[in-house]
């Protein structure tokens, strides 16, 4: 391919297309993060994720850090309007 320099796509959403059938990290509004296999997406960034690990960050009174709660879902539909960020590399957390 000649135009790999152009980040492999002409439209921003094509970047998400590259991650189809790959694990993606999705940051959502409301202090939620998802990590799972991207099955499908649309122009609104609505996504269907499989084998998802969802992390919910909550503020707990008196705690210096946010409490992270995790839960697993086999399949998840994410409405696009809550999506902040989609990446294939999950950030490393201590």
């Amino acid at each position, binding site marked *: 391919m000649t135009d790999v320099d152009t980040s*492999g*796509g002409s439209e921003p959403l094509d970047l998400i297309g*590259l991650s189809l059938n790959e694990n993606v990290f999705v940051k959502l509004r409301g202090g939620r993060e998802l990590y799972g296999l991207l099955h499908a997406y649309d122009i609104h960034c609505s996504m269907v994720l499989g084998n998802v690990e969802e992390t919910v960050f909550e503020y707990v009174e008196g705690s210096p850090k946010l409490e992270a709660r995790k839960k697993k879902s086999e399949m998840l539909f994410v409405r696009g309007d809550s999506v902040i960020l989609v990446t294939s590399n999950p950030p490393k957390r201590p």
Partner: protein
Amino acid sequence: MSFFGIAQPNQGNVQEYEFDDTYDDNLGGQLDESGDAFNDETFGGEASVGRDFDFHGETAKISYAIDEDQVAYERRAPQHAQMQHQQQQHQQRQAPPSLQPMASLWGAPDQKERIMGDEAQHGGQQAQQAHLQQQQHYQHVAAQQGGQQPLSLEQIEAQLMGRQAQAQGQQQQQHGVPPQGHAPPQGHFPPGYGYQGFPPGYPPPQGHPMQYQQPWQFPPLPNHDLNMQMMMHYQQQQQQQQGQGQFQQPQFQGQSQGQPQVQVQQQQQQQQQPQAQTQGQPPAVASQPASQQQAAPPTAPLGPKEDKAIPTAPQGFQGPPHSGPYGYQPGPVHVSPNHTIPPMDENARLAKRNEMISKRKPHNNLMTGGDKDFVLRVQLQQMVTEDPYNEDFYYQVHSAINVRSNPNQPLDAFARTYLYQRGQRGRRARGNENGLQRLQQQVHKAVQFVKDHPKKDSIISQGALGKIHLGSNKGPRQALDLRKRDDTPDADNSTEAPTEGVSATPELRSATPVATTTTTTDAIRSITTSISKFNLQGGSYVSANDKRGILRAIENVYIVLLRLEAAERTQPEDDLSDEFQVWKGEKDALVTQLWRELQITAPIDQADGSLHPFIAMLSHAKCKKAIPRVFRHISAEQRLTILTMIMAHIGDLDVVKNGHYSGEESNLPAKSREAIEVFSQTVLPPLVQYISEAEYGVIVGLLELMMDRNDTAAVVKTKVGSAFVTVLISRAELINQEGSVSAEDEETWNRIFNRVFGIVQRNNLNSLFPPRNVDDSYVWQFLASIALAAKIDHQRVMVDDVRDKIFGTMNEAKALPPDLSQQKINNLNLFLNVMGLNATTSEIGELQG
């Protein structure tokens, strides 16, 4: 007594106040009283106010339509409820003219006087009509004739007296009325409610005239005297509580004489009336505020028409009911025993059943069959497509899976379901068997319609500044209008041609290896070298380090793959037609393109030492999954090229690289295990299939290539690596046993195999085994294939090496439940049987038979 809640001052005690006296400060004297002369001109005192504010009146004009709505809504209401509401409905029907507030209630004294005058004029006339007409009819007429003016008390008296005389004469008749004529609800509404025909929740304005009290609600029911009296009492209470004089006191011929307390109350209430109520007035006369009400003669004399009306009443009840406030009145509605025990005839049961159904499913029958058809047509129209595999892909897959998993489910289940229902509704009983046909016709029509009326994608309405963009389910409205640069693989062919000299003739690329592929070991070498040479000439490929580029390449593979598969479905039937040639040309171009997108032709050794792009692509699960689909389209030579590439780089495959068990861990990471699983299920089968049909030379060449380029010892320690070697050796041995191998080839093979065996044996056969809890069948298979090819002394060495493992396995099997144990033994025997041995959980012996 009170009127409108305001204590009525005794007439005699009225004090006269001077305006100034009411203020202590005499400020009133300081008011500037001059300059008021033109107030009217200034503020438009004389101007007509208009009737814009008259919401109630406006509503009244259309109240008939409202009624109709409610009637329609209530149609499913229980029948007995309908009975209750029936009279209500009558009132509603007649209500429109009456809903206007009477000016006289509020009006200035002069208005009142005028009204009184009118009443005097009309009085006699009305009284006469009362004799002649059914009560409600009479009232209606009276309302029209008298305008909205109330009757005077004298007038009412006159009417009543006259009617009383008449009614007495008719009493016999009334008693002869059939039982249902005394249908319960009629007599049981307090008159004060009888008229509340306002829309639900609309409180009757105080002082509103009660013109439409229906006299037939109170037929003389001698056997109901007790009920009636109770009711009367209740009514009185109600009226007192309301503090309104707006009621009509029903009186009954049979019972009114014995109700002095009613009289007293009435008279008290009427103290405010200008016309003094005469004590000792005949009890039959309804005493009522003349200023508010038109008399509805309470004596309920049933005229000839009434006789007719009452028997028909039950039927009338089934008519459209009206949900007035009655439904919610806690009043004495249900006092009558007649009412609580309705005749349980067929109708009632039916009504009860309908009620149950409508309660449970309140939206039943909301849509007519035509409505449903219409909706279905709209939906079909949206769904219709000529290329269902592309535009309705998920449904196609879903239904394919459904059919597979449930073969009993007929394909046209949906059609059947839908059409069966229609058949039941049955306009014409055409039978259900051709229902599918009809649906197809419908779909066909819908398709035709869509074709005939292509949807515009935007509307420009006249005078508007912009366009309105329309969307459909296939082409959603665009939120962003980005300049679409066509970089689909198709376009690449043309755009890249100048820069990529070789790729402009992609056929060459696949052709080159084909041309040099022979069935000898040299063939493999020539493939690799030709690939390398070929690629040195130029052409750009994705670097394995460019992760995004690799992903992009996979996407392109899929795009081409989908097109290829779509092309397959549109294959013309006639192989000789021009159409077929065109199609074939297109398909071949697509295959060529697919080949290029696979990056397989990139130099076998990357200049910067990075991974081969194809191998890098294969590390993604989705590319692994694409391989079987790719294999369906490519030629045997191309398959060999892929196999060669994989064998050359087998050590770099993610499944091999990450397939080693490190000493401490009892199993591989989940990710690696999953990758190996996917690889075994997707990539291996087509390759194994190819190998199992490959020529001797190819097998030998591949093995040699693998050993030349990879660390064989490491490769065979992994599941995938050992699987490849197993298959290759098995195939070679199979050809050997067929015996059609030249001596030269056999010598080559022996050389290669000895090399393999040497490598494997040097590294201790025991190190091939995975940790204890992992399925080790693939190792036994590998050992079996080697043993198969090995000489007898080689076999002895192998058995010596794995002796501990063999007995260990047997001991393990002893401790396991039978089925698991049998499995272990079977794996073990894969290896032992090759050497003519057989193992059980306890001993090893000669293989029987």
